[in-house]
């Protein structure tokens, strides 16, 4: 069964229909890249899946559970939405780290707040917090940030900041991690270090969806590539299909421009 399934998702801003019925699915442990020209709706799609926008219609399933159903117009409790939110993670283009916390606290803040809701929190507080700290250290080590745990965001390079943002998302153990152009705010050499981290995550079996303009990366890292144009999925398939044997004229034109 697919870990992520999106069925005919639609979203308009006023009269501007940005998503015109998006359907896709992804298996556990796979990586999906979403490519497409500016304004094609890639960010809007990620934002709808991550509850930052509310889609107008369609359905989203994560791991078999409905996390969004356009038919269901009843008001959902904030708590319910938060529970669903935690199944997925999102890494932003602009990192959005918390400036007043050091790297370690950035990574552990939300996890610790969430742990407070556990029923056994009062009794096992020390143990729980210790586990969270250990886990954060492990993740930061994987991100190559062990020596930066005490640093504040402004003391880090963009690439390091983005790796902290990835660690922060991973600390909540999401089933799927979404990235919206994780490297487009970075210089080329910093881009490479962040892309390397994403590749490592893939090798560890993480399920990820990456919106990117890095075509080489998309080709190398993904199991599935989706090309979006004007709010629809114009073409999809494995990297060789989409990059080497594109069927649609729009895809061909887009790729020709991207590889210029």
């Amino acid at each position: 069964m697919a870990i992520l399934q999106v069925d005919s998702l639609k979203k308009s801003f006023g009269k501007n229909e940005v998503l015109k019925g998006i359907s896709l699915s992804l298996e556990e442990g796979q990586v999906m890249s979403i490519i497409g020209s500016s304004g094609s709706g890639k960010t809007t799609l990620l934002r709808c899946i991550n509850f930052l926008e509310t889609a107008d219609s369609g359905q989203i399933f994560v791991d078999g559970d409905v996390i969004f159903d356009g038919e269901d117009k009843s008001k959902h409790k904030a708590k319910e939405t938060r529970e669903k939110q935690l199944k997925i993670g999102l890494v932003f283009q602009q990192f959005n780290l918390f400036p007043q916390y050091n790297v370690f606290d950035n990574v552990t803040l939300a996890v610790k707040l969430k742990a407070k809701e556990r029923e056994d929190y009062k009794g096992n507080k020390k143990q729980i917090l210790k586990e969270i700290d250990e886990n954060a250290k492990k993740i930061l080590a994987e991100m190559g940030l062990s020596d930066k745990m005490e640093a504040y965001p402004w003391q880090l390079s963009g690439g390091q900041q983005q790796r902290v943002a990835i660690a922060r998302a991973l600390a909540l153990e999401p089933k799927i991690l979404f990235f919206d152009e994780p490297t487009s705010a970075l210089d080329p050499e910093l881009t490479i270090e962040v892309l390397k981290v994403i590749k490592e995550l893939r090798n560890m079996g993480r399920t990820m969806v990456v919106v990117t303009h890095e075509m080489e990366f998309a080709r190398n890292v993904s199991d599935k590539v989706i090309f979006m144009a004007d709010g629809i999925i114009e073409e999809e398939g494995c990297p060789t299909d989409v990059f080497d044997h594109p069927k649609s004229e729009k895809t061909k034109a887009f790729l020709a421009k991207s590889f210029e």
Partner: protein
Amino acid sequence: MFWNVTVSLLEGFMTTLELFCLTLIFAIPLGLIISFGSMSKIFPIKWISKTVVWVIRGTPLMLQLIVVFYGPELIAGWIGELGIDNALFNALAGMKGLDRFPSVLLAFVINYACYFSEIYRGGIESIPKGQYEACQVLGMTKSQTFFRVVLLQVVKRIVPPMGNEIITLVKDTSLARTIAVYEIIWNAQKFIKNGGLLWPLIYAGAFYLIFNGLLTVIFSRIEKKMDYFKA
């Protein structure tokens, strides 16, 4: 003589300090409530808050002092003239204003709460949307987002303008003498009336200067304390 003047000015300065401290204690939280009001999505609340802020910021504090002090009795007088005889109207016609000091305090609290609310609002609205969105995707509640993430960034941004406003408050306390609250300037002016002495007034100025100097030091300390992060 110098000793007499010093004692009298110190007495006045105690009143000044009392007014200053109490105004801050009440206006700082009240300002937060008003700022939430003016950012509210509920239209009537937003409208009322914005109107209050507009009126208070658009009229002199001295006038507000006079309205708070003399207003209730004035209105009671008008109601009395209507000559309607029932329990409610009699109660309203018998309405007394507050005493002098509470009147001044009330006017100051309302006035400064409005100014503070605008500073808070500016601070809160200047926090990038990405901070809220990051909190949301990390599953934090609205109150966690505000208290754990947004608040300190807001505080950092508002410390400099709050410092300016608070130093203005120190000087504004001298307006209390308009309705005969004996603060330091009132006491200094007594010496002009009674003995033609001008220097006590200048001496009083030194009190303000020293006190504001102290506040400036405190505020730059606070700013320094928050230098460890950039926001």
